[in-house]
């Protein structure tokens, strides 16, 4: 059993289950939509003001919406104690982690694709900087959120109030990445500064935390 093979099989299984239940996507969409609409009516910003605040708004809504999906990730494995079936198998532990992280990444990217036009409409957003850089920031930032989120969601599955535990652990450790996402997005939207430093920071953050999560996941999976 190769890591790639088990990762693909687990990812396809998770996608099939999500397609049937739509638990994660529906709750994420509802939450993100709520944030967009409420802030739009509360601030009623001009196009120029929007460019300055949108970076924060976008990532706050994606971060909170992602937490909803992240909590769902392991809930499926806890029902009927299915995780035990994986643990007794010879399948590599990291394949499970990667499949969950890729699944969450996909869910959040889908959410971002659906929400982007709404942000443009509600906040009259027009990017001064190159749009392709926004795509790079979105991909790097999303991976930063889901890789740590998937890991810490796994860490908190055996705690009593895991829905509360996840944001408590995830948000502080995501601060450097969040700063990078918000500042890079704002820099691109306003065209005031180069986002290169923040993009590099996000790339390094992604590499470092992906490695750490892969190194530690087996211990987390088998923790009692």
């Amino acid at each position, binding site marked *: *059993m190769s890591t790639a*093979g*088990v990762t693909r*099989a*687990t990812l396809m*299984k998770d996608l*099939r*289950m999500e397609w*049937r*239940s739509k638990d994660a996507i529906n709750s994420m969409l509802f939450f993100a939509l709520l944030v967009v609409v409420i802030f739009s009516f509360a601030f009623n910003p001009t196009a120029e003001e929007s460019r300055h605040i949108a970076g924060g708004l976008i990532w706050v809504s994606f971060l909170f919406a992602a937490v909803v999906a992240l909590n769902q990730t392991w809930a*499926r494995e806890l*029902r*009927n*104690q*299915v995780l*035990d*079936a*994986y*643990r*007794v*198998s*010879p*399948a590599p532990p990291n394949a499970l982690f990667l499949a969950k992280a890729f699944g969450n990444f996909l869910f959040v990217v889908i959410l971002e694709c659906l929400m982007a036009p709404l942000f443009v409409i509600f906040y009259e957003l027009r990017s001064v900087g190159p749009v392709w850089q926004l795509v790079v920031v979105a991909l790097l930032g999303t991976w930063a959120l889901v890789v740590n989120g998937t890991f810490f969601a796994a860490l908190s599955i055996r705690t009593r109030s895991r829905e509360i535990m996840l944001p408590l652990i995830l948000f502080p450790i995501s601060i450097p990445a969040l700063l990078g996402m918000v500042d890079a997005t704002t820099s691109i939207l306003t065209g005031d500064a180069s986002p290169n430093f923040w993009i590099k920071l996000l790339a390094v953050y992604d590499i470092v935390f992906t490695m750490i999560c892969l190194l530690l996941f087996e211990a987390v999976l088998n923790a*009692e």
Partner: protein
Amino acid sequence: MIATAQSSPPVIVLDNLVKFFGRFAAIRGISASFAPARLYVVLGDNGAGKSTLLRIVAGLMEPSQGSFTLLGAKRIRDVAHRVGYMGHAPLLYDELSGMENLRYFAGLYGIHDDEVGRNAMRMVGLDPELSRRVGQYSQGMRQRLSLARAVLHDPELMLLDEPFSNVDVRSAREMAAVLGRVRDQGKTIFVVTHQAPLMEGVADEFVHMTAGQIVKREECLRHAAVEEADPSRAGARSG
């Protein structure tokens, strides 16, 4: 025949195994060895440590003290593909059909042939074409599918925790007969159950546990008598 099985290297050797939950000792210094190609039925009251012992042997828990070898290996991951585990819970995804579940779990063992899953379902008396999701299965069907999942990769050693819980008597007897047939193919099976009478016709040995210790091991004479009367069956087991 039993003498042949017992002269083979043991499948499980427990050496002074202890498991604490906080200050409570669930397993209290168990040392024992178990011969291959036999069906062991582990009996005991609630809290006797049966499930804990099974979970330790399956690699789902670390012992607090002591050690054990499984199929000659100290590291369970090295022999994970030779062990099948059926938990107290079904260990199945409610949102998937029976075959989708088995296809996924077979993939974890490097098996990509759907026929293996179909055969496992047929063996436990389920229809592989059943498209209904497991969440809509009856408790008995879940238990059968859970057994199919545990034996899917043709393991040498099966650890089954309460396989007959919430199963009607007829289905439970059918499942016990399936276990007997699997044992006859040379597999070693551990069944933790409260329903000893169901296993009386098929078990080789009853292992009695009380307060975290094995207090009695009892050969099932009735089965030995059946074997002596039927040499072809004994031959099947020694293979």
